[in-house]
C-alpha cells in the first residue's frame, strides 16, 4: 500500500521543481467522460458549467488523479470567433465551417471580447466552481489554443499553410490578433481560479513545422504570448514530435512539455532534464483497446523511463482521452500509478 504524504498540488509542484515527490503525479485528461458520469449526452454535458465541474470532481474522486481539467473542447474558442461547433455522440465537439473563408476575411476580423462569449463564460464559471470546491488541494488546468495553432480551426490546415508561405503580412496580422485573444483568454481563466494554463500548440511540433520555420514563426509567437500570461504554462504538442525543438521550447518560458508516444521517452526526458517537466506519453488511441494488464505495463514502462528525479507527470499523449476508452482501463492506469509510481524515501 502506498502511503501518500502530499496533496496533488504539492506533488505536482515538487515534480515541476525537478524533485521527486511521494509518487509520480498523473493527469487523466478526461473531458467527455464526465457525461458518462452524469448519464448525459456529450452535448447536454457541455451545455452547463455545473455539469462539467461536477463531472471533473466525480472523475477525480473515482480515479484519484492529480488535476482537474477545466477544458471543455477545442473549438470552444472558435465559437468565440463566430464559428460553429458540430456535436457528436461519440467524440469531442468538432469545428464547423472555418470562420476565415478567404485571406481577405483576415482584414475584417476582430478580436472577440472574452466577456461577451457564452461558450467562454461557461468555461470560466466551471473554473470558478472547481476552485471553490478543491481550493488549493489540486491544480486546475485551464486550456488555450496557441495563436500559432488556432488558425487550423479558424481557416483549415491547407489554407493556413498557404497563408504562412504566400502572405506573410496577413499571417503577422492574424498572429497579432490571436496573441491578443490568447493572452486575454488565458488570464481570464487564471483569474477565475485556474492554477496553470495548458498551451496547445501542435503546429509548432516538428511533425508539422520544420525547425527553421518554427524559429521564425511559432517560437516568436509563443515567447511573446507566454510572457504576457500571468501564471505558469505547459506547452502541449497534442501527439506531435518535439525532440528537434525541445531546447527551443524550453526557451519560450514554458514549464512543461506534453509529448508524443512516437518519440523515445527516455531521450525526451534526457533532453528536458532540469529545464522542462515531461507530460506524457500513453497512446490515447490504442488505449481504447488495451486490457487492464496492458495498461499496467504501459504505465510501468513510462515510469521506468521518465520518472527518476522528478520532472515527470504521467498522462496520455494527446491531452484529451478518447470517449471510447473504457472505465476499467482508466482504473487500471490509476492503480498502476499507485503501485509502480511510488518514489523511494531518501
Amino acid at each position, binding site marked *: 500500500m502506498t502511503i501518500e504524504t502530499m496533496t496533488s498540488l504539492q506533488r505536482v509542484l515538487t515534480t515541476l521543481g525537478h524533485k521527486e515527490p511521494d509518487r509520480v503525479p498523473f493527469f487523466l485528461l478526461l473531458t467527455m467522460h464526465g457525461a458518462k458520469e452524469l448519464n448525459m449526452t456529450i452535448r447536454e454535458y457541455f451545455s452547463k458549467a455545473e455539469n462539467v465541474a461536477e463531472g471533473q470532481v466525480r472523475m477525480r474522486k473515482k480515479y484519484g488523479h492529480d488535476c482537474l481539467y477545466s477544458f471543455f473542447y477545442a473549438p470552444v474558442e472558435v465559437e468565440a470567433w463566430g464559428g460553429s461547433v*458540430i456535436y*457528436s455522440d*461519440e*467524440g*469531442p465537439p*468538432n*469545428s*464547423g*465551417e*472555418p470562420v476565415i473563408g478567404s485571406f481577405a476575411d483576415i482584414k475584417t476580423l476582430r478580436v472577440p471580447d472574452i466577456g461577451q462569449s457564452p461558450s467562454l463564460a461557461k468555461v470560466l464559471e466551471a473554473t470558478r466552481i472547481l476552485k471553490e470546491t478543491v481550493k488549493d488541494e489540486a491544480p486546475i488546468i485551464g486550456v488555450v489554443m496557441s495563436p500559432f495553432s488556432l488558425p*487550423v480551426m479558424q481557416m*483549415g*490546415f*491547407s489554407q493556413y*499553410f498557404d497563408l*504562412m*508561405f504566400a502572405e506573410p503580412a496577413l499571417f503577422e496580422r492574424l498572429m497579432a490578433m490571436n496573441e491578443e485573444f490568447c493572452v486575454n483568454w488565458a488570464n481570464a481563466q487564471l483569474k477565475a481560479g485556474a492554477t496553470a494554463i495548458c498551451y496547445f500548440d501542435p503546429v509548432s511540433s*516538428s*511533425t*508539422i*513545422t*520544420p525547425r527553421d*520555420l518554427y524559429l521564425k514563426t511559432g517560437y516568436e509567437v509563443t515567447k511573446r504570448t507566454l510572457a504576457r500570461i500571468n501564471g505558469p504554462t505547459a506547452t502541449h504538442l497534442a*501527439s506531435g*514530435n518535439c*525532440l528537434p525543438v525541445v531546447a527551443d521550447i524550453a526557451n519560450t518560458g514554458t514549464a512543461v512539455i506534453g509529448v508524443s*508516444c*512516437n*518519440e523515445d521517452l527516455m531521450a525526451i526526458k534526457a533532453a528536458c532534464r532540469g529545464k522542462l517537466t515531461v507530460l506524457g506519453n500513453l*497512446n*490515447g*488511441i*490504442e488505449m*481504447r*483497446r488495451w486490457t487492464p494488464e496492458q495498461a499496467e505495463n504501459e504505465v510501468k514502462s513510462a515510469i521506468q523511463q521518465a520518472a527518476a528525479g522528478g520532472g515527470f507527470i504521467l498522462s496520455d499523449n494527446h491531452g484529451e482521452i*478518447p*470517449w*471510447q476508452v473504457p472505465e476499467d482501463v482508466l482504473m487500471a492506469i490509476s492503480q498502476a500509478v499507485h503501485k509502480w509510481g511510488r518514489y523511494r524515501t531518501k
Partner: protein
Amino acid sequence: MNNLLSQDFEKALLDMDRRAATKILTQACESVEPIVFVEQVIVPALEKIGDDWDKGRIALSQVYMSGRICEDLVDTILPPASPNRTSQPAMAIAVLDDYHALGKTIIYSSLRASGYELLDLGRVSVDELVRQTIEHKLRIILISVLMLPSALHVKQVVERLRLQNCNAKIVVGGAPFRFDRQLWQEVGADATGTNIADALTVIHRIMEEMS
C-alpha cells in the same frame, strides 16, 4: 535522369521553393519527355519526402507544399486529359465527417502529380460517401480522417457498401490509423497507408488484383 538533378529537385521542394522546382523541370524537359521527368524525378521525390516525414526527418508543411508544387507543375506539362496519364479504375478520395482536409489534399495532390486522375469528393458523411461510390461506380476509395470517431465510422461505410454488393476497395489513412496500427483492420478497410509511397504501392497492388 541524373542523380544530382533529382537531389536538387527534392531540395527545392523541401525548401518550398516553387521557382527553383519550376526551373529544374523546365530545363530537364528540354531534353526528356515530361512523362519521363514525372516518373523518374517527381514520383521518387514525393515518395522519399513522404517516407522522410514518416521517419520524423521532415515536417508536414514541407510534405504539403511539395505535393501542391508538384501537382501544379505536372498539370502544366501533363494536362488532366493527357493520354500519358495513368489508365486506372474509377478512384476517389474523401474526408469523412470533419473539416480537417490536409491529409486528403496531400495525397490528392501527390497522386495527381504522379499521373493519376481521381475524384475529390471533399468532406462527406457516411451516407454521402456510400451514395457517391455507387453513383460514380467507384472501384477504389481513399478515405482520410483526423478524428478517432471519423475513423470508426469507416466501418459503417464498408458495411453499407457490402450490403449493396459494392466491392470497392477501401483504403484508409490519417492520424488515428498512424497511432493504432490495427485500427484499419478493425474497421474493415482493405488497406492503409501513412504516406504517398504507401498510397502508390497500395493502388498498384489493388490494380494488379483487379486485372
